[in-house]
Structure formats: C-alpha cells, structure tokens
C-alpha cells in the first residue's frame, strides 16, 4: 500500500509541476481564470445567436447547457491528462522506460499524473460556475442538504473518467503519435452523446441508446438535478436520483475493472512488440 501511495504522491507532484510550473505563478493564476471565462463567453455567444434567431429567451436551456459545459471541463482535461501521460513520457521526455522499470505500479503512476489535471479542472469548473452565477445570472441553486450527494456523484464521475481515460490510454502503448487524435475524438463523442449541451431526447433513438450506455450521461444528469432548480426533460426523468447514482456506481466499478484488464493487456502487448519505449520521428 505504501508503494502505491508513494507512487501516487510522486506522480501527482510531477503532474502538478508540469501543469503549473511552465510560467510565473501570477501568470498561471490569470491563465487559470481567463481560460474558463473565455469558454463561458463562447456559450453566451452561442446562446445569444440562438436567442436572436428564435426571438425567445430561454434561460432554462441556457442554464442546462452552461452547467453541462462547465462540468465538461473535467472530461476534456481528465481524459487528455491520462492519454497524454504515456505519449508524452515516451515521445517527448523519453522517460517512460525509466519510470516503467522502477518498482511502482504504472497504473497508479498514471492516476497520480492525472490527479493534477483534476485539481486544475476543479479550479476551472468553480470559476466557470461562479462567473455564470454572479455575472451571467445563470439560474443555479446549491442547497447544503445536496452537498453529500454532489460530492459522491462528483467522485464517481471523476473515477469513471479516469477509468475511461486509462482504458483508452492503454491503446496508446501500442500507438505512435496518432493517439493525439484519439484524445481529441473521444471527448467529442461524449460531447455529442452524453447530454452535455442538449438533452438526449434531441438525438435519434440510436443516438439515445449510445448515450444511455455511457456512464457520463448519468453523471451530467445527476449533476444538473443537484445544481438546477428545475428538471429538464432529458429522457431520464423516469429514474430517481438514487437510481441514477446507482447506475453511476455500477458503471464506475465496471469501467475500473475494464480499465485494469485493458491496461494490463495493452502493457503486455507493448512489451511483447517492443513498443513500450518506442520513439517516432514523425
């Protein structure tokens, strides 16, 4: 256990240094604030365009997409964070071979590296939500009695994201720099099918089936139920909060088991094919 903790701690320290140490602290702070705020402005612009076309203001829809988009920050950064570890250690820093042959769990190492991304994302999400609430008057409420449910759902959502990230990341053991494409494409799929910007009911039936098979859909649903004072018809209205949470819990276990298996397989195949410390020159 101490090996796992030591690995996690050191990897998280490394991740944090890499994420935050590229510039002066004050510049990093400004960047961390401006980035999510700029993202929020894109949403505002989209909303204003739709509003001007329809001629009808729809604050509930805006709140729906605003909250979805705020929490999508976790998806992009956590997935990219886990994908990027193998590729960057192998191709850019050329340290993968030395980290890999050290007496640690490489799986835990990746979790540690991704942890710093989550920390940075938490800041981004809080800034986005705060900016929306105070400056854009997004209709949100956060009652103290919902805090435990929020914390549990957030933890499960992040665990699922890490598990998905590592599952897909295992593929990068066997891929060259093309894995960058994967890191961009997969969050794109989630953006469309998990009810981030619009409810599942807008999708065709096959699209809804895909959406309901992805655990993140339930995470976005429960998060909105906690933060928004109204319930939007997302196609999951038939399920209560605890049922949604149960789906999330089960899928967390399933995806974690899957990630362990796929990671071991990817690692074995890479070691067999001699691709663990492969560097490409293109």
């Amino acid at each position: 256990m101490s090996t796992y903790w030591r690995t996690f701690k050191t990897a998280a320290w490394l991740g944090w240094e890499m994420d935050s140490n590229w510039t002066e602290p004050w510049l990093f702070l400004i960047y961390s604030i401006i980035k999510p705020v700029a993202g929020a402005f894109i949403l505002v612009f989209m909303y204003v365009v739709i509003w001007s076309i329809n001629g009808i203001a729809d604050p509930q829809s805006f709140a729906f997409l605003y909250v979805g988009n705020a929490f999508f920050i976790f998806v992009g950064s956590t997935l990219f964070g886990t994908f990027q570890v193998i590729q960057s250690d192998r191709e850019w820093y050329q340290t993968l071979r030395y980290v890999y042959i050290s007496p640690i769990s490489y799986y835990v190492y990746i979790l540690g590296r991704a942890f710093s991304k989550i920390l940075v994302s938490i800041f981004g999400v809080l800034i986005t939500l705060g900016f929306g609430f105070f400056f854009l008057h997004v209709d949100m409420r956060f009652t103290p009695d919902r805090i435990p449910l929020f914390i549990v759902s957030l933890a499960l959502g992040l665990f699922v994201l890490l598990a998905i990230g590592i599952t897909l990341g295992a593929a990068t053991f066997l891929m060259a720099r093309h894995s960058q494409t994967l890191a961009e494409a997969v969050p794109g799929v989630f953006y469309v099918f998990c009810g981030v910007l619009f409810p599942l009911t807008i999708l065709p039936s096959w699209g809804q089936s895909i959406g309901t098979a992805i655990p993140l859909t339930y995470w976005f649903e429960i998060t909105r139920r906690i933060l928004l004072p109204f319930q939007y018809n997302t196609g999951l209205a038939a399920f209560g909060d605890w049922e949604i949470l149960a789906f999330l819990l089960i899928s967390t276990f399933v995806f974690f088991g899957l990630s362990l298996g796929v990671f071991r397989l990817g690692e074995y195949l890479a070691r067999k094919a001699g691709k663990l410390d492969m560097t490409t020159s293109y």
Partner: protein
Amino acid sequence: MAYAVETRDLTRVFAGKKRRFRRKRAASEGDEQLGPVTALDRVSIQIREGELFGLLGPNGAGKTTLIKILATLLLPTSGQAFVAGHDVTKDPFPIRQRINMVSGGETSGYGLLTTRENVWMFSQFYGVPSKVAKQRIDELMHVFGLWDKRDAKVRLISSGQRQKMNMIRGFVTDPDILFLDEPTLGLDVNAARTVRDYVMNWVGRERGKTVLLTTHYMAEADEMCDRIAIIDKGKILACDTPEALKRMIHTQTTFRLEVDPLRDTSTFQGMDGVVNFSLKDDASKNRTELTFILEDEAPVAEILSAITAQGAKVHALRKTEPTLEDVFISMVGRGFE
C-alpha cells in the same frame, strides 16, 4: 551457483512490418515485408554477482535488445532470462526493485524540473527516503561535475549534462544490478573518464554490485570489464576475460597498413596465411586503413605486392599487439565500423 544475470538460449525476433499504403508504382512493392529481424539468437550468458561484465559489439549487434529484456522492458521471443534469480517474463516486480538502467546518448528528462528534482523524483519511485536521496544526489552531483547545474531546469542544460544527470539517476537508487547501455556515448573525454572511473570504483568498493555494460568502444571494454562477451548479429561469438580473448589470437600476427584507396580487396580473401582482414576508409586523409590477422609474417610481402599492383601507395605499416577489435576481426572478418 546463483548468478546476478543468466540467460538461456535467449532469442528475440522483431516481427516484420507490412507497408500497405505506398504509391501504386508496383503492386509487389506495396506489400513489401520489412523483416522479421532476429536481434538475439540463442544467447546464453552468466554474469556473477560483483562482476563488471561487458557486452561488446558493433551497432545493431543486439546489445540494447538484451539490456531491454533484462530490464523488463521487452519480452523475449523464446528462451529464458533471469535477473537476481527472477524470471524477467513471469516475475518482473522483484527484479525492478534491484535494478536500474542508464542509456547513453539520449536526452531524457522532464524539462520543467531542475536536474536535482528529476533525480529526486526517480529516487522516490524506488522508496529511497527523501533525506537520504538528497544527500546522495548532492554527492553524485559533485562527482559527475553537475553541482553548478543542480538548480538549472533540464530544458536549459546541454545534452552531455543531461547524460550526467541520467548517470546520477542510475546510481542514486543504489541498485544491486546496473545496466549501462553505451554510457559514455556522446560525452566529452573528461566526462567519459569520470564515468568509467566511477563505475569501476563502485563495483570494486560496494560488495555484490553488478554492472552489465554495453559498448562499442574497445578500449572502454578492455579497461573496465572483468569479462567480455563479444556479440554480433545477435549471437555471442566469445565470452572471457579481455586478456583471455586477446590470447585467443596470440599465435596470430596483427598488421595495420595505411594505403591509398583500393579498387579491389578480394585478392586478400583467399591469400595463404591470411586469417581475416578488415578495412576502414579515412575520408579526411583519402586513405584506407587495413587490418590483417595473419598466421605468421610470411604473407606480408604478398599483401604489399597486391597493393602496389593496383597502383596504390603504402603510407604506413605497423605490427601491433592484438586488441579486442582484432579478436572481432579474426572472428567475423570486419571491424566495428
């Protein structure tokens, strides 16, 4: 007897790669099969605890492949390899607790961290207490001449300094078995001297420490190693102490000639008394250096005649003591470069 490292008929074949999406110039070319390549061919070696063992061979001989297998980075295709008594295929974790590896000529490291932070981070993966690690890092930074750069970010230091940092990374965890893959490649003369001295002292001073060193520098292997295995095209050609290897050709005579570039060297091949020979072109001087391993001195006159018959001049002729390269030439009929 328990060995620090033991391999039994270790073989590694890298699968070929199909090129499917090339220009349509020729259909057959589109399916060109590159490989498979046999990097290691039934390699069996035993390295004793406390030994400084060298693996000497030209580029592409299979040295790095062997180190990668022993360091648990790569799986063998067949055969077995044991490090500290553990099978590299089935039981890598206990091996990793006892080994470390340094590869020369590469510039690995996290650019945003300082040299000290880079090394410290790796020491933490090995469970070295932070205080002990910092003390060791400072000592090693002094030894390898990196003390002035201890707080410099890795992106700002030279490739040679990065290599020194990686040497420190290799020693800071105090491994029982250290794999050094061409550790002096790309280092300046003084830095290479420091590395060689430190490695030899480390093995001599610390009881039970084992080093497997790969190199294509003959003098380095000769000076440093207790025993040397000569490897070429994945096969171990000979394995013994440097002296014993050189004694293998002590009954033979080595001559080196510096001549004008030759049109034809095939005449030397069937010449009586010529065991083997190699040639190396020196473009800067526009000359060719020929090394002959001869049964005795009798063929020298015939060799000189063959050279002058081509209109080439002989600029120098020396009879030399056999080197490890001569052993290699005697076995495979070419030098390392």
